[in-house]
């Protein structure tokens, strides 16, 4: 099968982009380049981790989402959300109030992503018991991590546990429950309230081949704002039944060590995409040995630090910890007799996670070698300052772009300066080259320049 380019949720609003290099600097996969004074994303390399969004001083990055009005098309309107949504509310708002606010928004059912977590724990444990599987095993929980492995650590795709993430589990779970109660498939609209961009992409183009059962995606910061606007002081609706399946472990699942504390004899939990990258480098070298399970999350403090969360990630984690104490352990909870574990389990299996090396210079190895030799020669001429003024994140990346025909020697401002000094290029021509990269008029003195006035960063 031909590899499809991944679906991406992160987009750039050109009108807002001021053409600085903050995003390009922080991107863990070197997926951003500046062209004509605007940031552009190399789609193949983007893992939707959201680092660029965090770093952007002009808030030029946005993520696509569905309109909340879309829920009106369905008779059964389900809000599927991770527990961190509750965690970011100030203590004065009870979970009853928050659930009620969601009903006031028009939802008929609310399900926290981590509700039927026992199914996932059992299934994963069963997989981990298998012999012959490559260790350490890595869960699919964080879609940014899964994509990072696919594009940058292709040899590690075998280590990914072929079981879907909790949001798939709960989506199937609620759908099954509603169908059992007599609902028709087309009457059910499941809306995922997402804490990050990566989860959106995972919903729109799942890791395996099967289509997602989620009908739409709503970004958590907008949703949180809406809830804060309509939340009522008095609780008149009893929503306890909606939380029947919730367990202590489930509530903590998306926080750091939520998974690793459940699996394997020796498990590590790592959060923050740059820490994840460093660890994978070591793992691939065979430097890290003896671990059974890795919990890898792209955001600091895991989902509590999701790019679309409004609350502080530390207080969010703490509230979830407090909240979890009010719920039973999954070990003490009876399984819902109506739950069809067998079909639920079947819907969670992934056939194959394919690698997709996004750093290859060419599909053909001998052509790639030619390009590599050429890049190695080019690098001799570049200053090694890694300033980013060429629109690429570092000199090495610029050299690689050049052999791909995506950049020119004259993109390097230092090289141009040398050429001017040697009289090989006129000043006018050199200046024109810079304007081509950064936009016409970009270097004119202007106190009202984009990003200059009252936009200190």
């Amino acid at each position, binding site marked *: 099968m031909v590899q499809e380019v991944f679906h991406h949720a992160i987009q750039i609003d050109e009108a807002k982009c001021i053409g600085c290099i903050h995003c390009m600097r922080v991107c863990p996969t070197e997926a951003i380049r500046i062209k004509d004074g605007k940031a552009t994303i190399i789609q193949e390399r983007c893992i939707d981790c959201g680092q660029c969004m965090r770093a952007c001083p002009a808030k030029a990055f946005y993520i696509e989402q569905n309109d909340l009005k879309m829920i009106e098309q369905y008779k059964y309107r389900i809000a599927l959300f991770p527990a961190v949504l509750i965690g970011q509310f100030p203590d004065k708002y009870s979970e009853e109030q928050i659930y009620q606010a969601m009903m006031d928004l028009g939802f008929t059912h609310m399900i926290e992503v981590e509700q039927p977590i026992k199914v996932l724990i059992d299934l994963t444990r069963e997989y981990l018991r298998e012999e012959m599987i490559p260790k350490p095993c890595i869960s699919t929980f964080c879609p940014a991590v899964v994509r990072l492995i696919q594009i*940058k650590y292709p040899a590690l*795709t075998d280590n990914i546990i072929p079981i879907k993430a909790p949001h798939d589990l709960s989506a199937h779970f609620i759908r099954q429950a509603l169908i059992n109660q007599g609902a028709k498939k087309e009457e059910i609209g499941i809306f995922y309230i997402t804490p990050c961009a990566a989860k959106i992409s995972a919903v729109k183009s799942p890791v395996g081949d099967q289509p997602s059962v989620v009908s739409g995606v709503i970004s958590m910061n907008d949703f949180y704002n809406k809830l804060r606007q309509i939340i009522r002081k008095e609780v008149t609706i009893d929503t306890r039944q909606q939380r029947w399946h919730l367990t202590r472990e489930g509530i903590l699942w998306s926080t750091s060590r939520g998974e690793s504390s459940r699996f394997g004899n020796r498990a590590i939990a790592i959060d923050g995409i740059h820490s994840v990258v460093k660890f994978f480098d070591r793992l*691939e*070298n*065979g430097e890290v040995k003896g671990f059974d399970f890795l919990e890898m999350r792209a955001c600091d403090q895991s989902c509590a630090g999701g790019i679309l969360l409004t609350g502080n990630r530390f207080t969010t984690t703490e509230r979830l910890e407090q909240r979890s104490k009010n719920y039973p352990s999954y070990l003490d909870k009876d399984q819902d007799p109506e739950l069809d574990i067998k079909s639920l389990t079947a819907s969670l299996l992934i056939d194959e996670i394919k690698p997709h*090396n996004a750093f290859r210079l060419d599909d053909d*190895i001998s052509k790639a*070698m030619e390009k*590599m030799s050429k890049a*190695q020669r080019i690098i001799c001429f570049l200053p090694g300052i890694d300033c980013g003024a060429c629109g690429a994140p570092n000199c090495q990346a610029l050299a690689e772009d050049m052999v791909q025909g995506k950049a020119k020697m004259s993109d390097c401002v230092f090289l141009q300066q040398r050429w001017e000094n040697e009289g090989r290029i006129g000043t006018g021509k050199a200046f024109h080259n810079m304007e081509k990269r950064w936009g016409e008029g970009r270097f004119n003195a202007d106190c009202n320049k984009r990003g200059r006035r009252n936009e200190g960063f």
Partner: protein
Amino acid sequence: MIELKFRIEGGDFDRAGTASSETKKVLKQLNIDPKVVKRMVVALYEAEVNVAAHAWRGEVTVSVKDHQILAVVKDEGPGIADIGRAMLEGFSTASPKVREMGFGAGMGLPNMKKNADELKVESTPDVGTTVTMIFDF
């Protein structure tokens, strides 16, 4: 042909792994089968650690040609007295200090043998050791 060269200092465990990491990056760019890359990187890392643990200094040369990667790790050091025994799993002459750092389990050369398609170890006592590994792709 692509050639990469790296220097290793004896006792510098902090830098050991640089050659394997950098080589890995290049091999991925060349679109070489991930399984071969993995074997190569694991074997090279072991060789690097060996130099750091036993030798005074060394040099890594990786050359990529048509369908073959050649890695030569040449060091100046005490050499290996008995190569036959050094190839046995669990045999190690690493100092207690090196062992304390978590190295010296006696899996270095056996692991290189397991991962490389061909392995050649030449050593002269008090002069040094040259490990040559070939990986086919």
